[in-house]
């Protein structure tokens, strides 16, 4: 079935959307500021003759037009981490401060966890949760390679996340980058849509609602929760937000994102969502030559 065709009414330029989805995804790395600086990393890449193109919207996010991210000295030393450009969006939108307590609800393999740790100068605490041991091994390996010491890893279903191992009962912020149908990763994994079914979309939307609800509960009043997916399906995006603002103490808030995007959709296949879901942002692959992405910021009100 033509999964992407479902969204032709939503996108502004169908032809450009289709063409971008067919192109392979450019490589990018994020500079790990726990171990080095952006300037020194650029110097090291220059010395190795590796071409890079800085993403204007994020200091230290470098597109690599010709090179593999993992086969050079800056990578070996933990100065860089291969991370797709839009994957750097949600941690940036969450904008944690040094010294805060942050929950990364679906953390493995750790690109966003380690980004949060770096944004916090490796201080405070990032609790990184996943429910799969193999993926946790990858998460731990990445966190250690990048020199993060403020990360605590828990294995559990994020919907039932327990704060019992810690001495506090609420986080300052939570990142909810949920498992999804991954339609937006088709440039990286051309097979991404092979096993797509509408049943799976609806099933996983239930899980997403449960995780977002737990994140809102576990975050203090006035704290922030960022919800993100790498999929286009409104059932996994605006519908999950609509559910959260009705069922949990939170509201959608405006935020800046210096990447081309469009606002969240208010209606889809006969359903309508709360007016405020327009505050969410949809990034289509042709907007910035990236993967597809969805991101929203919520404030906890109770």
């Amino acid at each position, binding site marked *: 079935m033509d999964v992407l065709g479902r969204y032709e009414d939503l996108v502004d330029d169908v032809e450009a959307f289709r063409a971008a989805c067919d192109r392979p995804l450019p490589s990018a790395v994020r500079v790990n500021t726990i171990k080095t600086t952006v300037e*020194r990393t650029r110097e090291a890449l220059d010395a190795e003759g590796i071409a890079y193109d800085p993403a204007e919207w994020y200091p230290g996010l470098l597109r690599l037009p010709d090179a593999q991210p993992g086969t050079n000295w800056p990578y070996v*030393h933990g100065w860089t981490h291969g991370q797709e450009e839009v994957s750097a969006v949600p941690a940036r939108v969450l904008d944690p401060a040094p010294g805060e307590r942050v929950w990364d609800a679906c953390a493995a393999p750790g690109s966003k966890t380690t980004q949060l740790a770096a944004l916090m100068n490796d201080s405070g605490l990032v609790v990184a949760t996943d429910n799969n041991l193999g993926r946790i091994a990858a998460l731990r390996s990445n966190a*250690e390679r990048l020199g993060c010491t403020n990360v605590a890893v828990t294995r559990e279903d994020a919907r039932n996340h327990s704060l019992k191992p810690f001495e506090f009962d609420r986080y300052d912020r939570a990142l909810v980058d949920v498992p999804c149908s991954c339609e937006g990763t088709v440039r990286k994994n051309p097979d991404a849509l092979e096993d797509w079914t509408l049943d799976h979309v609806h099933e996983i939307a239930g899980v997403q609602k449960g995780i977002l609800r737990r994140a809102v509960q576990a975050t203090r009043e006035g704290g922030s929760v960022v919800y993100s997916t790498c999929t286009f399906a409104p059932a996994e995006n605006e519908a999950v937000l609509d559910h959260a603002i009705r069922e949990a103490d939170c509201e959608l808030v405006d935020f800046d994102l210096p990447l081309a995007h469009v606002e969240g959709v208010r209606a889809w296949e006969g359903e309508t969502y709360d007016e405020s879901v327009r505050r969410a942002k949809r990034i289509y692959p042709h907007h910035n030559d990236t993967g597809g992405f969805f991101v929203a910021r919520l404030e906890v009100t109770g």
Partner: protein
Amino acid sequence: MPHGNEPHRFDRLPATAEERAVEGRPTRQAVVSWWDERFGIDPDTFQHHTFWERGAGKIWAFRDDFDQPTPVAIEGLGMAVLRTRQEHWKPTTEAAQRWGTAASRNVIHLDEPAAEAFLAGEDQDLAWDGDWGYLIAANDLAGAPEPIGVGLYVHGELQSKVPKGRQREF
């Protein structure tokens, strides 16, 4: 509260020998002093970190801004930094990379061919007039020495201790 060493639980190291409740568990003081004596790393470097044991002798460093309670049964707490409860304590690759730039001794500088061989996991004959034992191996990156990992120097040979999963051939 005395308790034994359990393989899947993190237990904070006692500050000093007087506070030790589990036999053989190293103290915080011993760990910080070891980095100072072996590599000249200032004890203040670790002022924000607590040290934890999980599994016999494996020590983890955790940035502990909120006074994490002990013991704690989770999957990870900061990073593994040191293997103790053996005659010669062995630092991890990750600890060597994270704190090795603060070291003032027992750092062996490798030229590019030697650094590449070290990273590939190869043992090599090298001249070194310092201590035998575990060294931090470094190469130059962006104009300054940067630690790659840990080597064991004995009898004129530097053995690479870069774990298989971290080895690379360019």
